[in-house]
């Protein structure tokens, strides 16, 4: 399977070049019109054939497994497992993919970004296959995220339109956010159990703490709901219809949105036994399928109608997993297959119509069957399947759905009713999209330029439409396969024969009533656009999302403005406040004694120096004249130098004297030309600043007093004092430390000086030179 995935990636990378060169050759060298869609569709066809050939193997219960090391130490491997549901999805992805690639080759023939389109499409296809066959959590996550990214790029394909960009952003944020939840969920399972793959999880017998189990479940359900657009995250899907139609057909109905459902199915073997899992899925799925169908049926835009019906079916699939009965899991596989076929067809048909008539409004469309016979045929086939007419796959799917509902232990009536309403509404949508457009009365559109579409656009939906019948008729032949699908959804293995015809049963009656109801609804709803229901359930979350973004910007702006307000004095205040809290709270009041001694043996010189410093400090603060302040600053420096003299540090004193002088000179050079600008701060500012200043000052004083408690001769001191002359030939220990024992410090120090000098020269001369 790695080979298939690699091929996909390589093709994705090469696609833009291929498209470029085909376009080039068409014009210049050979006069042979080879559409890139035809060439590229061979790839998914080949993949499809491969997967198709695996059916007997998988049906017999074998599960091929490959694993390639990635980050072995973290149990992250590229391990792939092709079980029933994986194969079903792979078949869908490559099969529908082949049609889409072919279709897009004509549909977007003249688009400048066709190359990029194929790149993203193949990336997506690969990612989707990866999702279907990955066994390792993190490999799965890799491909899952890749579907989000490629979907983002495809939704925003018409990137110049604000709406496209916004829809793409919406989809990315919702699915990306869900991806993060999924990531957290995987990590949670991994760090608590060491499990890193679905196959291990499905046979895991250990116990997880309730908290872990519950949080993992919530995280996964967020991942599932966002990806598969379940309530309340459903709103991004209708908006994603901003993408070109082939994209909508592929990603947003047939494949990607089913990734969430797929995840639910993958997790079901373990989580089915976890409390609330099934119930939650049923509630979410049930709500979504009903409300989406109600919202969808009144739509007038073809793509919207289909988008909502997709939502509804996704809800149904989630419900089926949640029911977790043998019937419902069997129904799951069949509904997936049937839905993929008819929904992809209907989307492609919608695209064909749009391409030809330039509108997707069902209230305007009608009577196209003469003009577009092939498109009409495809549309009708799909609509009949969706409606659930025998012998289409859709009929079979509906039978199983009803069967699982009637067989379900409790709330049977409610379930049957729910499915009945949903199915009827979906049937009505089928009639609106697949029948009404072609046979309804001719509405006020000009069909002068309408024409049947190019074969590349017509053939894929026709094939898919026919496959809907094939799947229905050859039901019994698929028994083993669908059993392998349902077996991969649960821990138990049961086999069950599939038949198209069950005889005259209650369920058949239900199916028939459904069709009747659908027709009734279809005729009742003639034209309607947005309904209050839709307002509440689509526009509200969309608006909420919008205001989330808006609030995010506002909060971000406000917070940033608060902290980073540009005022240096505020920065310094906060910085010192942080120091006060951090360091102040670390002062060892409780453990260490303050070594405060009353100054008894203090000479008069020391008192004078102390007084000089204090007076100088007061002058620095009080003086209005800069020169005085600078001079006072100098006095502080000199006084410190004198302290160095008193306390046995002649080298320090010497250096301090010269440096202080130099600093004052520099000040004079640099500052004395500056104009006088005396601003007297108000009392409150003074008080606030003074309290910050005094707090820092006390921290410094206290730190010294705490730290000097235990004076001891350090071994460094002893070493330097004894070795200085003997080994380093110097009597001045401080100097020997500087040029020998710790010469590296001095090397760094002179580099600092050199760079500082360089910087000063640059500051003074850089702009001068420019003017010359």
């Amino acid at each position, binding site marked *: 399977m790695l080979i298939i995935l690699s091929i996909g990636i390589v093709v994705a990378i090469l696609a833009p070049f291929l498209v470029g060169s085909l376009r080039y050759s068409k014009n210049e060298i050979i006069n042979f019109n080879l559409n890139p869609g035809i060439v590229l569709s061979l790839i998914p066809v080949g993949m499809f054939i491969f997967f198709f050939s695996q059916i007997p193997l998988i049906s017999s219960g074998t599960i091929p497994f490959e694993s390639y090391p990635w980050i072995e130490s973290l149990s992250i491997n590229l391990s792939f497992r092709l079980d029933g549901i994986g194969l079903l999805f792979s078949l869908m992805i490559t099969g529908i993919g082949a049609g889409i690639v072919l279709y897009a080759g004509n549909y977007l023939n003249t688009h400048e970004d066709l190359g990029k389109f194929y790149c993203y499409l193949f990336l997506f296809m690969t990612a989707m296959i990866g999702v279907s066959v990955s066994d390792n959590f993190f490999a799965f996550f890799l491909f899952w995220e890749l579907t989000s990214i490629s979907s983002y790029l495809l939704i925003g394909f018409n990137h110049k339109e604000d709406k496209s960009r916004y829809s793409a952003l919406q989809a990315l944020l919702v699915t990306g956010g869900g991806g993060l939840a999924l990531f957290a969920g995987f990590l949670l399972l991994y760090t608590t159990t060491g499990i890193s793959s679905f196959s291990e999880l499905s046979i895991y017998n250990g116990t997880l703490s309730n908290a872990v189990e519950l949080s993992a479940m919530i995280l996964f359900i967020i991942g599932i709901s966002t990806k598969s657009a379940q309530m309340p995250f459903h709103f991004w899907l209708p908006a994603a219809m901003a993408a070109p139609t082939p994209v909508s057909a592929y990603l947003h109905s047939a494949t990607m949105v089913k990734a969430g459902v797929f995840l639910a199915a993958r997790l079901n073997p373990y989580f089915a036994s976890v409390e609330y899992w099934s119930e939650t899925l049923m509630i979410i799925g049930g709500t979504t399928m009903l409300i989406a169908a109600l919202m969808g049926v009144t739509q007038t835009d073809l793509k919207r109608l289909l988008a909502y019906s997709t939502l509804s079916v996704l809800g149904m699939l989630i419900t089926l997993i949640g029911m977790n009965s043998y019937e419902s899991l069997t129904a799951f596989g069949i509904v997936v297959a049937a839905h993929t076929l008819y929904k992809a067809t209907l989307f492609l048909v919608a695209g064909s119509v749009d391409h030809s008539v330039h509108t997707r409004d069902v209230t305007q469309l009608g009577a196209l069957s003469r003009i577009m016979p092939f498109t009409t045929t495809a549309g009708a086939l799909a609509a009949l399947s969706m409606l659930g007419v025998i012998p289409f796959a859709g009929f079979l799917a509906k039978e199983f759905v009803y069967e699982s509902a009637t067989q379900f232990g409790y709330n049977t009536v409610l379930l049957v009713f729910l499915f009945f309403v949903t199915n009827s509404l979906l049937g009505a949508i089928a009639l609106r999209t697949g029948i009404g457009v072609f046979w309804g009365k001719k509405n006020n559109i000009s069909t002068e330029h309408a024409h049947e579409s190019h074969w590349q656009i017509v053939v894929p939906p026709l094939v898919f439409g026919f496959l809907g019948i094939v799947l229905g008729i050859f039901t019994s032949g698929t028994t083993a396969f669908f059993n392998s699908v349902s077996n991969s959804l649960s821990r138990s293995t049961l086999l069950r024969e599939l038949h198209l015809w069950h005889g005259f049963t209650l369920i058949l009656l239900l199916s028939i009533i459904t069709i009747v109801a659908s027709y009734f609804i279809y005729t009742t709803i003639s034209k309607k656009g947005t309904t209050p229901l839709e307002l509440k359930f689509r526009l509200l979350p969309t608006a909420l999302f919008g205001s989330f973004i808006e609030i995010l910007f506002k909060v971000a702006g406000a917070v940033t403005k608060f902290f980073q307000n540009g005022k240096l004095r505020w920065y310094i205040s906060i910085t010192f406040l942080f120091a006060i809290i951090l360091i102040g709270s670390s002062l060892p009041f409780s453990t260490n004694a303050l070594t405060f001694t009353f100054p008894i043996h203090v000479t008069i010189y020391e008192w004078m120096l102390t007084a000089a410093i204090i007076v100088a400090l007061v002058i620095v603060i009080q003086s209005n004249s800069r020169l005085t302040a600078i001079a006072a600053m100098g006095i502080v420096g000199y006084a410190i130098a004198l302290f160095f003299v008193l306390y046995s540090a002649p080298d320090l004193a010497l250096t301090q004297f010269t440096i202080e002088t130099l600093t004052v000179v520099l000040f004079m050079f640099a500052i004395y030309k500056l104009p006088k600008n005396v601003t007297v701060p108000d009392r409150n500012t003074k008080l606030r600043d003074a309290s910050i200043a005094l707090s820092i000052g006390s921290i410094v004083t206290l730190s010294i007093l705490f730290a000097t408690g235990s004076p001891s001769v350090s071994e460094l001191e002893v070493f330097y004092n004894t070795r200085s002359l003997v080994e380093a030939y110097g009597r*001045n220990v401080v*100097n020997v430390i500087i040029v*020998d024992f710790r010469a*590296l410090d001095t090397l760094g120090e002179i580099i600092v000086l*050199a760079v500082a000098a360089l910087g000063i020269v640059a500051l003074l001369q850089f702009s001068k030179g420019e003017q010359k």
Partner: protein
Amino acid sequence: MNSLILKTTVRFINKLLLLFSVFLLLRGHNEPGGGFVGGLVASTVFILYTLSEGYKEALAYLKVSPFSLIIVGLTTAILSALPSLFLGDAFMKAIWLETRIPIIGKFGTPFVFDLGVYFLVLGITLSIVLSLRKDSE
């Protein structure tokens, strides 16, 4: 500052100061002093000259640019640290001559290092002061 007295004084005192700075450098290993303070004192020679004659004259008096003094100082300091590395020893390990040299006493790489510091300090002080002087003119 075209005071004649200043000029004369500076000329007289300069030689003395320069000598003093070398003295400080040489005795640094045994008494307070060293390359850093020595370099600073040496730079006052040229700062005084700048004050009395102007920065262009001071530059001429210096003969080399302050910047090249910085480079010389840095290079000297770094080079003094390398020989030990070639001998397979640690970086900056001191290497001493066996014989004592008059005035300096023991001569070794730490002294060379200090010499580097001396030149560098001279160079940076002058380049800062002279460029400030130039800027304000």
